[in-house]
Structures are given as C-alpha cells and as structure tokens.
C-alpha cells in the first residue's frame, strides 16, 4: 500500500492536541425549561467534579479524525512501483493477434501504467504497434496528453487479426528519443524488425516492459491434407516446459466434430496434430480452433481446398458400364457414392465443371482434342485414375503402338496376362503388401483377393518407384506418374469383377478413398482464374467472424493462397458462396520466436497482481459513519435524542438502505383463486374502452348462461398471456385492437400451450359484416399478432359443426354485426378431440352480449332487432357449452346416421 499524498499524514501529529482539546471541553449540557427555576438560583452541588467527555466518545472522535487524515493521504492498495524517469511517457501496446489470448490482462496492465503515470502527473502518448484496421495506416504515436483523456482511447483498443509491424513502430518511436520514458506492454514475440524497435524504445529513456516469461500466443498453420487425415499444425515460441495443447475441428454451425490433443515437447516450437475423421465428417469441417483463449492466430478457416472432391466417372462403353453387378462403373459407384460427389457424363461436360478426380474405366483416350483436354487438366492438378480392361488391352495391341498413350503412367505391353484358367499352369495371384511409399500403405490386404487378368507394364528403371501396389509375384497392379501438378494412376485390372476379385473386397473402397483424398482438390485446378474475390467475412483479433472492415480489399484466388494477413487483407472468407476461399493468418506468418529483453529495460509481469484499489473513499465513508454515530451519541447525551427516536432513526436508516427488501415485504392482496370457480376470461388489450366492452359482454353472457343452463360461471377474468396462468380458463375472448404491440415470446408460448391443452380462444376482429366502418386495420393487426401462434388450418363454421349444435341449434352466428364467416379448425383435424382450439370471427359478440349496471344492452345490434341479440346470446351459450363439454355434443351431429343404422 502506498500513499499518493503522504504529507497529509503529518496531520496525524495533531491528534494528541485534538485529544487534549476534546478532553478539556465538557460536553454541552442539556437544556431544560423549568418553571420553578427561582428555587434553583444559587444552588451549588456539594462536590463539583468537572464533567468530562466519556472516554469512548473521545476514542470514537479520534478514530474518525484519524480516518479522515489517512483517507486524505489517498492510500492505494496493490499499487505498482512508480515508473522510472520523468517527462512524457510513451505507452507502447502490442495489439496484434498475439496479444488477443490474454487481452484483458494486458488492458489491465496498461491501465495500471496509466494509474501510475497519473499519480506521477506525467502526460502519456499511446502507440499501438499493429497497423490500424480502419485506414490500414502504419502505427503512429498519439500526442502526449493527460491520462484522463487517454483512458477512453485505451479502452477502445481491440487486438487486430494481423501481426504487429515492428519496423513501422520503430519509425514512429524515433522522434521520441530522449524525451521521457516508455512503458511497453509486450506480446513477447520478436518478429522482423525487432532489433530496431528495441533500440528505438531504449533510446526514449527508462523503459518498463510488461511481458510474460513466455509469449502465450499460439499460431495454427493451415493444415496439411493427407491421405486419410487432416494434419493440423500448431506453432508457438519454444517454451521451457512441455505443454499439452488441443485443437478442435468444428463444422460450420460451430459444433465440434473432433478434438485432438498433443504434447509439445519442451523447447520445441511446432507440433502436428493429425485429425482422423471419416470423409463425410471431414467434408463438413469449416474451421480448426486451438482450445483455450481465443485469438485470430488460433483459428484456421477451411475452404473447398480441404473439402469437396468431386469425382467424375467415365467408362469406355457407357451403356454396358451401368449394368448392375457386371458394369464397369457399378462397383466404383458403390464404393465412392457415400463419400464423394459423383458426376457422370461425357468428357467435355465433366471437365467443364470443377472436378478433382476423373476415373476412366476401360476407356481408351483417343488422340486429338480429347487427349489434349485431359492432359491439360492433369497438368493443372487433376488426378486421373484409369482402370484397365479389354478395350485398353486391345487398344494397346492394335493401333496405339506408334502413338503411345501419354495419359498412362507406364508403358504397357501389348495384350494382357491371364493367370490361372484351364489352359494355364499358373494360379490367380494374390496381392503383395503395399510398399511404404504408397498411399495405400497400412491398408490390410485380404487374403482372398485374387487377380486373374491384368495388363502388364513394360519394365524399366522407374517402374518400381512408380508402383503403388503389386501382386504377390511382383508385377505391378497400381502404377502412377505425375504430370505437372497432377497425377495419373493406373489400375492394371478392371473396375468390375471380370479380371479380379479386387472390386468385390472392402480393400477396393479404402484404396479409392485414399486416392480421392490424395487429389489436390478443386482449388488447384481453377487458380489460374483471375477473378477478384471480395471479402465476405473477416475475423477480428479474437478469431470471431464478422463483416469485413472498410480497408479490406478484394484478391484473386491465386493471391489469396499466398497473401499475408494485413489490414488490406484480413484473414477471413473471400469470394462468392460457390467458390469460397479462405485467407489464413498462418499461411505466411514468420516463425514465432520469443523476443529477447529490451536493453536496459525493467521487466514486470503483465498481470502482476490485483488492480490498484483506492482506499480513500472507503476510509472517508467510514469516518463519516463514525461522525454520524458521534452525532447521535452527542444528541443522546444532551437529552435531545431519546431511545425511541433512536430506534425510529435506525428503522429509517434500514428503510433507506433496504428499499427493495422493504418493498417486497409489503403484503400484496391475495388474488382470487381462479381454480374454485369457472370463469370466462378475456385478453386485456390495453384499450380501456374495448376492455370495458368485453368485460361487460362476458358479464352479460355469464349471466345469460347462468340463467339458461346448468353451468355456473363466475365473474369474467382479465388475463394477460404470458403473465397470467391461463390453465384455469376454458375460453379466452380476444378482441383485436389495431396497432397492438407484437406478442412477446412468453405470451406466444402461453397461448400456444393454452390451445394445445384444450383451451379455446375466440378471436374477434370486431369488424365482420360491419362494412369496414368499424375497427379498421384489425385484419392486419390479427395477421401480425397471430404470426407465431400455432393456428391450425381453418374452415368456415357450418350449421353441421358441433359448435352450432352444442346447446341451441343455430344456423347463423350473429353478434353485434352479422353476415361474415366464422372460422374454426378443419373437421379433418383430429387433434384435441376435434375441438377447435381457435375460433376466429368478426361479429363483435361482446358488444352484443354487453349489459350495463342497469341490466340494459348499451350497444345496438346491426342491422338490428331483438332476434339478432337473442341469436347472439345463443351463440354465446353454444360457445360456452362447446368450451365446457368439448365434442360431447358431437354425437348429435351423427344422430341421423346412427338412427339410420339402428333402423336397419
């Protein structure tokens, strides 16, 4: 703890004087009016002991005075050491991605620096070392300003998703050389230009560096796609202790599909984490994230390069190829369909779209434009997978001798080789184990696979290197050759079961999948395209995706693959949805190296301890409280403050201090128990007039029902969906008022639950048949209000409906108005025992039912007549009966049919 203004503590020396003064000053006497004062004049007590202030009161006052003095000395708890040097201070903050994992600690540390500078009365200039995102400008130091003005700037800082620019920062620091001091909140990474930066920093004056022992930043490099796995690569500055890191593989909806862990050995900077996922899951990955504090460096976005690998299929005889069980493409389809997107067509149409692998099953590539097109595609990165077959073998034999097929990895001998059979001594051959350089390495070779026929490669020096699989006798079964960026692979047997059992085995599926995974993907093929891709979503410093910054510019696909993250090109997603590309921070990031110490600087940990806390307010508040107690005690000693008043004051203090609790203590009138009486209910609209009409209407209806039927209804209850428990009410009358606010989520939930559990809502738009003169706009209001309600499909209410027969037999259903349709649930719907959960109409029934205090009907019916009102009441009775008995009266509807059946 330190004191910001320690000289105030000198006043503590005056405390004994205060003690003495307080001690010799007797307490003020009570003052009492006394009529018999004449008898008191001149009276003196026999012993005159001087009245003294009680010692405890004295101690209380001394304590209060001491608290005030100590408080005015402004003690600060957990204060950091004062900053070295004088003059203006340059606060340098690393705000690149590497600062993001512990950004709040860094801000607290920077804020602590500002606290210290403020105490020392030094102006502070702020320099952030990463280029700013708004205008992509190089770092520039602000002018030196008072700390209070700098604080908002500091709190507005956010880490940037690109690395810091030390060279530019050094340039910005040079004008400050020798002018004051510097404080540097470092991310601990060296990076290019560190030396000049450190030199410029040290040249300013005394430097305080706030940094951790090891930089906490971890950078996720773009993963490497391998045959059956994705290998995530994590980089960090080497640390003295081994540490365990985890990488999460997430899908587009941010669900984690896989989590891999690895231990980084001490002193090592890079670790690889293989992510083994089935291809169908792997295709859904959209990002890899380092588990732990978020930063842009810990996120790698994946695009099509790591995912989609469309496969084209082409057979020599397209018609025969599709025949089940014997066609050339049948097994290929069965093997690949679950995992990849398959396309079938002629060569031109297949190559016109992005395609990653092309499988030619026993297809002879004719020289000419077709071969040129294929060769071009392979050169740009395509994987051409060919299967041998009778046509290939024959093609070799006949006319290709002088024109070797360039799209075969090896030169084939003419004809084919038959193993086993009636005229042969040899036996069908099994497969040898896969050589280690083969992508099939590690796959288990089933013993039952036998190859009976194959085409043979012409032996040469490179044949062994070009062979990925061979038979037990050593003849190649799968050969390959690279062509430009692409690759050509040949299976020396057929893709069906004619020449071998390979297509029947599970090994075939695995081999094909490995080959597909081997392909470069579609990106490698279309990169020559010069279209500029605009940024769609960019990451912020914490790796959270958001709309792109203003300075972000479009790039071509080729540039994206090699671009380094910068304000112009922030990491994120680029391009249209069909061909989305990702720019990752780790693509072109220099290796992470811990920065050496700045020469001559004092180092402090970033998060030394708790933040500074000012004690002065608490001390002064305590002193005030003590003085208040002293006041009460003094008043009591003078007799002006009685015990009862004291209790009152204490109660008052409590009441002030605990207003919330006091309010909760107020008893609220118990609501009437709606479970004890059947009540109609209406939805409170907020329009007092409408609510009054509806209440009067339901009162009139309840009265009518009570007189005419055995039902006993209580007073109608106003309800607010979402607040009132609706489960007690059978029928809810809901008048629609134009311009009502949208229903809250709780209200929608409550109304839907009400309808789902057997409640009936009568929705009254109060305009049906009125000729648009009344309640204009209620249709729109209904549409808006009912937006989220689970209203079933509706049909007009007919006289055959239960509602028209539940008590009276009704043919029309007038209210105040007449002539419009009333809508109920369709008869087909059997939910809820065929009881319609909602009845929608516009006849303003409540106004027809309404009675005033004298029992009269205040609202005239239109077109009018006592008959209409009677029918309105009868509809109301039917409604109540319908609500109370459900489909009980539904049998009534079927009586003609039942009678007819009984008659037979």
């Amino acid at each position, binding site marked *: 703890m330190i004191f910001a203004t320690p000289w105030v503590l000198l006043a503590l020396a005056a405390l004994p004087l205060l003690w003495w003064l307080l001690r010799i000053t007797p307490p003020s006497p009570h003052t*009492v009016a*006394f*009529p018999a004062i*004449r008898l*008191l*004049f001149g*009276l003196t*007590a026999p012993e005159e002991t001087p*009245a003294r202030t009680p010692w405890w009161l004295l101690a209380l006052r001394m304590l209060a005075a001491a608290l005030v003095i100590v408080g005015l000395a402004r003690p600060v708890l957990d204060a950091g050491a004062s900053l070295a040097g004088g003059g203006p201070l340059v606060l340098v903050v690393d705000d690149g991605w590497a600062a993001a994992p512990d950004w709040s600690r860094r801000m607290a540390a920077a804020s602590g620096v500002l606290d210290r500078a403020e105490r020392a009365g030094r102006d502070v200039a702020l320099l952030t070392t990463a280029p700013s995102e708004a205008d992509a400008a190089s770092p520039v130091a602000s002018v030196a300003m008072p700390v209070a003005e700098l604080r908002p700037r500091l709190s507005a800082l956010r880490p940037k998703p690109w690395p810091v620019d030390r060279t530019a920062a050094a340039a910005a620091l040079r004008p400050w050389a020798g002018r004051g001091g510097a404080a540097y909140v470092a991310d601990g990474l060296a990076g290019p230009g560190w030396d000049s930066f450190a030199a410029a920093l040290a040249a300013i004056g005394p430097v305080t560096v706030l940094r951790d022992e090891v930089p906490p930043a971890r950078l996720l490099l773009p993963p490497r796609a391998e045959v059956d796995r994705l290998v995530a690569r994590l980089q960090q500055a080497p640390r003295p202790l081994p540490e365990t890191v985890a990488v999460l593989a997430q899908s587009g909806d941010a669900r984690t599909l896989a989590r891999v862990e690895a231990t980084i050995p001490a002193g090592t900077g890079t670790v690889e984490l293989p992510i083994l996922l089935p291809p169908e899951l792997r295709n859904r990955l959209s990002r890899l994230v380092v588990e732990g504090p978020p930063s842009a460096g810990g996120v790698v976005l994946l695009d099509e390069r790591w995912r989609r690998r469309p496969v084209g299929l082409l057979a020599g005889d397209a018609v025969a190829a599709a025949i089940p069980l014997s066609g050339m493409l049948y097994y290929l389809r069965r093997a690949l369909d679950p995992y990849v997107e398959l396309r079938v067509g002629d060569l031109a149409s297949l190559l016109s779209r992005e395609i990653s692998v092309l499988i030619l099953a026993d297809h002879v590539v004719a020289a000419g434009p077709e071969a040129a097109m294929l060769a071009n595609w392979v050169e740009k990165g395509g994987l051409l997978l060919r299967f041998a077959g009778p046509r290939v073998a024959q093609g070799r034999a006949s006319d290709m001798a002088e024109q070797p097929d360039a799209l075969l990895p090896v030169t084939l001998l003419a004809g084919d080789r038959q193993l086993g059979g009636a005229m042969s001594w040899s036996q069908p051959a099994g497969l040898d184990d896969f050589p280690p350089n083969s992508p099939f390495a590690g796959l288990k070779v089933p013993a039952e696979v036998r190859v009976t026929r194959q085409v043979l490669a012409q032996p040469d020096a490179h044949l062994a290197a070009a062979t990925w699989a061979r038979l037990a006798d050593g003849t190649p079964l799968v050969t390959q050759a690279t062509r430009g960026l692409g690759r050509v692979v040949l299976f020396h047997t057929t893709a069906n079961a004619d020449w071998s059992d390979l297509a029947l085995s599970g090994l075939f599926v695995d081999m094909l999948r490995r080959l597909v995974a081997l392909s470069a993907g579609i990106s490698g093929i279309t990169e020559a395209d010069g279209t500029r891709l605009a940024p769609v979503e960019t990451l912020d410093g914490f790796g959270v995706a958001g709309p792109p910054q203003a300075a972000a510019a479009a790039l071509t696909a080729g540039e994206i693959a090699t671009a380094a993250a910068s304000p112009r090109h922030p990491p994120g997603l680029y391009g249209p949805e069909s061909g989305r590309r990702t720019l990752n921070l780790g693509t072109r990031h220099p290796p992470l190296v811990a920065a050496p110490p700045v020469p001559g600087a004092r180092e402090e940990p970033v998060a030394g301890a708790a933040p500074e806390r000012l004690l002065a307010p608490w001390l002064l508040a305590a002193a005030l409280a003590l003085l208040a107690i002293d006041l009460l005690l003094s008043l009591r000693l003078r007799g002006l403050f009685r015990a009862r008043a004291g209790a009152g004051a204490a109660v008052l203090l409590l009441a002030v201090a605990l207003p919330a609790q006091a309010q909760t203590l107020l008893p609220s009138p118990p609501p009437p128990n709606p479970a004890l009486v059947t009540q109609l209910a209406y939805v409170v609209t907020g329009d007092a007039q409408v609510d009054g009409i509806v209440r009067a209407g339901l009162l009139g209806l309840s009265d009518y029902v009570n007189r005419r039927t055995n039902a006993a209804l209580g007073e109608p209850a106003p309800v607010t969906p979402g607040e009132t428990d609706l489960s007690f009410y059978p029928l809810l009358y809901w008048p629609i008022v134009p311009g009502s606010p949208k229903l809250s989520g709780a209200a929608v939930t409550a109304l839907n639950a009400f309808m789902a559990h057997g409640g009936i809502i009568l929705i009254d738009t109060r305009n049906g048949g009125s000729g648009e003169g009344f309640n204009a706009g209620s249709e729109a209001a209904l549409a808006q209000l009912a937006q989220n309600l689970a209203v079933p499909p509706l049909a007009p209410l007919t006289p055959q409906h239960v509602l028209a027969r539940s008590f009276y037999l009704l043919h029309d259903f007038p209210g105040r108005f007449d002539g419009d349709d009333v809508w109920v649930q369709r008869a087909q719907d059997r939910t809820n025992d065929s009881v319609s959960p909602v009845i929608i109409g516009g006849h303003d029934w409540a106004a027809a039912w309404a009675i005033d205090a004298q029992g009269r009907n205040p609202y005239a019916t239109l077109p009018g007549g006592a008959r209409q009102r009677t029918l309105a009441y009868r509809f109301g009775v039917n409604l109540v009966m319908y609500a109370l008995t459900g489909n009980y009266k539904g049998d009534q509807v079927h009586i003609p049919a039942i009678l007819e059946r009984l008659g037979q």
Partner: protein
Amino acid sequence: MTVSARRAEALGARLPPLQVAAERVAATVAQGVHGRRRVGQGDSFWQYRPFLAGDDAARIDWRQSARTDRHYVRETEWEAAQTVCLWRDGSASMRWRSRAAPVEKIARAELLLLALASLLLRGGERVRLIGGAPRSLSGRVGLDRLADQLARLPESGGMPPEAPVPRHARVVLIGDLLAPLDEIQRTVARLAAVPASGHLLQVLDPAEALLPYQGRVRFEGLEREADTLIPRVEGVRDAYAARLAAQQKGLAAIATAAGWGFAVHHTDHAPEAALLGLYTALAPQGGRR
C-alpha cells in the same frame, strides 16, 4: 344527581371538552357531599306540609290541596347563596409539563376550577371569576358562562388582579404559587381585609416536586428569568427539596394567618382527590353556620 349517559351525550355536544371533564370530576365528588337539607328561602321544592293556623293563605298550594280534603302548604329548601370567587394562575409557568405528567399545570388548574364551580352551582351557590366579568353567576347556565369567561381570560401574572371581591365571599386561588412569599402574603392580606375567607391550592408538576434530572443541565425559566447552569443536578436535589418545602411551609403559614386553607396537588395525581379536598374545605363547617 347522577348524570345519565344520555344526558352526558347531550352535554358533550354542547360543552367544550374541559367542561365535560369538569362535570365528570364534579359528578364523582357530588356523590359523597350533602347540601343543606333545611326549609328556607329558595326556589327548589322541599316538602308539602299541612296548613297550620297562622300561615299565610297565599302560601297554600292549591293544586296539591285540591287532591285531598286538607290544605297543604308548599315549602322550599333553604337557600343561602354565597358567592365564591375563583381564580387560577394563567401565567406562562403554568403552561408547562414534564414528561412524567399527563397534562400541563394550567389544564389541571382549569379542570379543578370548573369542576369546583360545577359543584358549587349545583349546590346553588354563586360563583365569580376573578379577572372575569364583575357579576356573580348562578344556575346551570352559570357554568357555561364561567367556562366561556375562562377561555377568554387574558394571560395574567402570577397573582390575582385587584378585582373587587364581595364581602364575606369565599376565595379559591389555584396556581403553582412559586412567586416570592411576600408577594403572596400581600395578596392574601388584601383579600382577607375585604373580608373574605378562602383557600390556596398549589398545583405542581411532579418534576417540580422531585427535580428528576441528572448530570449537567442548563435550566431556563419560562417567564424571562435568567437561566442557570447546574453542573450536577443530582447534587443539588436535596437543597432544592428543602427550598420547595420552605416555600410550602411559608404558604401554609400565610394561609393559616389569614384563616385560609392550603393544599398541594400534583398533576400526576387524580384530580378528584384535590376537588374533594377543595369542596370540603369550602363546605360549611359544623357550628359555623
């Protein structure tokens, strides 16, 4: 003479609260006091007696005589109305009460004055308020008027003003009587010279009697006396009690010398006891009448 509940209600509607209280106090005391049960001049009916020779024929009560064969003479009770002059101290020192007392001293003094007046008026005496209208009041209406005069009385000094007092009247002075003794002596002597006999009632607050304060207390007077600071009140309590006793002893001596009565009443005691004392002090002594 019991005031029935219905009557009390009617009274309560008409009378100010003080008068009601006075009536109630008076009613309790009147139970135990008996008036002059003798035939004489007066308005109240006393008895019928047979006509005797020598009686004035005009005194025959014809209504009564017509019921029987004999003649009756109607006799009234003897009424010897005496004027009682009442006074209470209305000074500022009376308008005070301590925490232990239920009422201010002046409230108790007025209650006693009115209750006494009520009793006297019921007994047929005439009352007059010293300082009020210079007419004696009588009858039931008299109490109303007395209460009215009492309410209008201006704030006065510690001693009754030099208003004319009828000869041989009785005087009742109610107050705290804390003024210097010679001042009281002068007043009593003046009244006794009229001649008039009477009674002094000292009404004291319990705090005045006991001085129940503690510690360092500054006392202030109510009538612009200087204030005094007592460092330790408990130390002077005995001295104060001695001074108060001396004052009361002096008062008693003054009263005795003038042939008057003297009593002390504390406001925390029941007013009935004081009223009974006053009333019996005023009632005719055996043999004197």
